[in-house]
């Protein structure tokens, strides 16, 4: 296996991008990544794109070819592959790109993620997202994604005594970070009361416990580490990679409050990177709902089960805390265009490690990403470091 580095990153503004089409979103993200990596399109050998449900959101499939075409790369006939694992599609596209470069199959590879969610109404969106769960045995019972995560929260609060305020603090902290991120969907700080007085979506989760519905795209470019300096003075090395699966349905988990795929993917990422938990400077975790961030911190092994709420309340995970979580604003404030999120996490991590993160800059040598599909049936983790 060759060592691999990220040499260019790009991300669109996240939000309701009414004026911008699906193809314009990824063209923008791709152009930003190429510009950042200081290379032209004909250098690209291969593309992987994460996308959950263009078929239902915009009635378009065959996304790999569409992207190659509109990125101007179809004329060179390069391979372009769509990768799907619900909300983990982006992280998985990155993993595919990483293995393509590491194996020596391709040299300069783009990992992109894109989702255009706002062309359909909220009720349709809710149903499209429900396809990430088990349609035959959860869908037919009337689950929604907020509902599934709410069931984790109910059991978690019952068992560990997590308070409503501790849960709300996750959103407060992430909105605070989002306020420093010019790409974020929400850039306004909020208070605990904003969360606890917002509309109930699925008890105990309220509007401000949920990630929003978002349009957006992100793209990053990978190259063999030995060639990275041809393109950039600040390559960021992929230190470790871990992917894991678990049961599709939440009811089939051994423990409703533990994502065993997060435990496994995290362990694999740490083993391959040969670093310890204490070496990690910050993590972009998959906070699709506030409870998901609490579980992620624990399941990645940064504290014992039941402790993450208290740590969050004490500021341990804030930008100036001991282990900053979601400096980008996370899915909560930055927004969650499902297929793009996993790539955006890499974008943020690279920006942070290069020292390019502006008002939300954290001083760190090593960062980590954690991307979840569904309620934890697919999890992809990566660890990155400066060279």
């Amino acid at each position, binding site marked *: 296996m060759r060592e691999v580095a990220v040499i260019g990153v790009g991300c669109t503004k996240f939000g309701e991008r009414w004026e911008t089409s699906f193809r314009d979103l990824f063209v923008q993200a791709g152009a930003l990544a190429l510009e950042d990596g200081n290379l032209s399109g004909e250098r690209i050998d291969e593309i992987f794109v994460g996308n959950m449900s263009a078929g239902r959101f915009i009635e378009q499939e065959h996304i790999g070819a569409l992207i190659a075409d509109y990125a101007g790369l179809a004329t060179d006939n390069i391979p372009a592959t769509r990768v799907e694992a619900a909300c983990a599609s982006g992280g998985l596209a990155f993993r595919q790109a990483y293995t393509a470069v590491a194996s020596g199959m391709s040299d300069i590879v783009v990992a992109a993620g894109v989702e255009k969610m706002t062309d359909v109404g909220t009720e349709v969106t809710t149903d499209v997202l*429900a396809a990430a769960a088990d349609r*035959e045995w959860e869908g037919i*019972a*009337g*689950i929604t994604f907020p509902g599934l995560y709410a*069931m984790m929260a109910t059991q978690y609060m019952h068992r560990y005594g997590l308070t409503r305020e501790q849960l709300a603090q996750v959103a407060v902290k992430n909105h605070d970070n989002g306020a420093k991120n010019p790409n974020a969907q929400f850039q306004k700080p909020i208070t605990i009361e904003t969360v606890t007085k917002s509309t109930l979506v*699925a008890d105990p989760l309220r509007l401000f416990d949920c990630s929003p519905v978002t349009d957006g795209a992100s793209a990053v470019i990978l190259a063999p580490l030995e060639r990275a300096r041809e393109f950039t003075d600040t390559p960021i090395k992929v230190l470790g990679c871990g992917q894991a699966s678990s049961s599709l349905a939440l*009811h089939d988990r051994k423990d409703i409050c533990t994502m065993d795929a997060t435990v496994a993917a995290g362990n694999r990422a740490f083993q391959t990177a040969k670093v310890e938990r204490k070496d990690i400077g910050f993590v972009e975790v998959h906070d699709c709902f506030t409870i998901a961030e609490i579980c992620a911190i624990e399941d990645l092994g940064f504290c014992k089960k039941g402790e993450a709420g208290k740590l969050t309340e004490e500021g341990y995970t804030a930008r100036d805390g001991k282990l900053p979580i979601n400096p980008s604003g996370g899915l909560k404030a930055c927004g969650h265009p499902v297929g793009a999120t996993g790539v955006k996490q890499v974008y943020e991590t690279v920006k942070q490690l290069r020292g390019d993160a502006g008002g939300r800059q954290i001083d760190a040598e090593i960062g980590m990403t954690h991307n979840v599909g569904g309620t934890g049936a697919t999890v992809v983790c990566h660890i990155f470091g400066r060279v």
Partner: protein
Amino acid sequence: MSVSRFWRKQQNRYNLIGTHCTTCGRYFYPPRSFCPDCRREGKIVDHKFKGVGTVVTYTIVRSAGDQFKFLTPYALAIIELDEGSKLTSQVICDIDKIQIGMRVKPVFRKLAEDGKSGAIFYGTKFVPA
């Protein structure tokens, strides 16, 4: 969900018929035709569940997709059947009354309606036992 896709598992849904691995003793509802513990050594037979179980966790869904919005707000739960298998179902009860540990039993009810095809899906839901 399409009518044919629903119909394939209709008897299971109507009568709470799952499966049982006679090699290791595990019960499956929803049914599985392959035991994840025994894999190829597993011998799978049908099993009609007694139906009684306990609420492991729950939520009240207040915002739902098209097929379910006529039911909101509704109680949704993960229920552990006495045989040891877990499933997801609505619980028909006063939404303020549902709690972890509550005992429940099955009833036959309308599950969902598909506005486009006009199909109405029936199956098992739960009520306090």
